[in-house]
């Protein structure tokens, strides 16, 4: 994936962030570098692996007694 200033602009709009031209260019360059680094994850074989969101089972509202 190649991150361009245009793409950052559209993502910023969706994220409700207003960026200056300078920021758009700088962030595109920096985040592009970051994603190139992150891309090494694609080497890992994750077939059949379950995702982990939380380490323990999270208590839900049902676990909690009604109280004032």
């Amino acid at each position, binding site marked *: 994936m190649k991150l361009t200033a245009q793409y950052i602009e559209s993502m*910023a709009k969706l*994220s409700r962030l207003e960026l200056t031209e300078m920021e758009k260019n700088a962030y595109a360059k920096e985040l592009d570098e*970051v994603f190139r680094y992150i891309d090494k*994850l694609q080497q*890992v074989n*994750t077939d059949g692996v379950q995702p982990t969101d939380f380490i323990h089972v999270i*208590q839900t509202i049902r676990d909690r007694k009604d109280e004032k």
Partner: protein
Amino acid sequence: MELYKLTIHEARELLRKREISSRELTKSVLERIRATEGEIRSFISIDFNNALKQAERFDKMQKKSELHELPDLAGIPYGLKDNICTRNMRTTCASRIMEYFSPVYEGTVVKKLRDSHAVLIGKLNMDEFAIGSSGETSIFPHTRNPWSADRVPGGSSGGSAASVAADQLLFSLGSDTGGSIRQPSSFCGIVGMKPTFGAVSCFGLVPFATSLDQIGPLCKDVTDCAIVMNAITGFDARDKASAKIKHPDYTTFLIDDVSCMRIGFSQKWMAGNLNEDVRNAIEKAKAMFEDMGAVIEEVSLPHIEYAVPVYFLISSAEASYNLTGVDGIRMGYEKGAIPELDELAEYVGMHELGSAVKKRILLGNIALCSEHYETYYMKALKVRTLIKQDFAQAFEKLDLILSPTNPDTAFRFGEMQDNIVKMYEYDAFTVPVNLAGLPAMSIPCGFDSKGLPIGMQLIGKHFGEEALFRAAYTFEQNTDHHLKSPLLRHPQ
């Protein structure tokens, strides 16, 4: 006597014997802060009057013998990272947008410490919303490393670490999402602990990445760390990640003996860019454990090299969600007339958030958007499972894993700003611990050729704090690294 230099357990003995009062101790600490704060700049807010009032209230109670048994932290001055909500002191997260935020509720840890009659002195500097590893993203004057004023204290709990290292406080609390307690503790030469995920309630902590955040203590030695753990751990129904377990008395783990302990060590993990002084200090510590009867075993953690990218995807994704609340409606400073809601949020992004925070929001949203969800976010969650399994497998036959806390010692201000990936890789030893929800501690294990402290990291299994404390205490009892203090430019 310079009371501010005391550890918690030393001060506790003197308070119990009534050789000192909490007022004397608190006054000494406040004078120390007055003398050194110009150099260290670890505080965002200090409440001098209220601190003395709390100390006097405790002294009065003790005089009237209203307290049968003094809680361990009674009368002890401490500080909180400024992302832990306090009712009568603002909580800023070192961000412009929360500069005047005064919470109507307080964190569970704050209540627990108040019930222990500890004396809250103030709120400590940090990276904006805890996003950063140097303290440089704070909107307040940047905290300096007590060992070298031109270097960072580390982050994000930079103020929490610097204040304890500079004897401005007897202990502090910080939060650790990817190393934010352990890394600054190692840069400042103190003991910092990230407990098992769920051991300490995070209710009242402004969240960064909810599945990784954990509150923990920063102290002058391992004994103090156990004392603070006793006061802050426990189940809390208001934190949905809080673990329903019976917590032990952590001070019973302070045993000077590591014989037959099985300690894992990974040469492969250490193979990357590592400062030679750090490598030597860790090798020396390893040899020392071996001499004292511990069994050192090579450990294989096959997916550990992927921990940093996994961490950055997950923490950014969770941060981008957690920061949706920061839209300028509920908080934020006076901005005059802005007609549309969308414009307000955009205005906030432009004027009130720092660039490190904005980059994290963008990174998280890019990873979460539908076209990249499977390739990035979901992939990261799956590799997280593999990392968790690596540790689980390793701990089937190990009590602990030993590593450096950081690949290098404290860096200079501005040194890392242009190199985001290098700064990320600085976290290679700390982030896997958060991904797997394990407990870990950073303890001082030497100094580099520049005289800067080096930290050693001990990692335990889930709720395996016993092994952590035992090994850390043994190491501390047989070395003197933790006894050295930085020479400040303007000593009292």
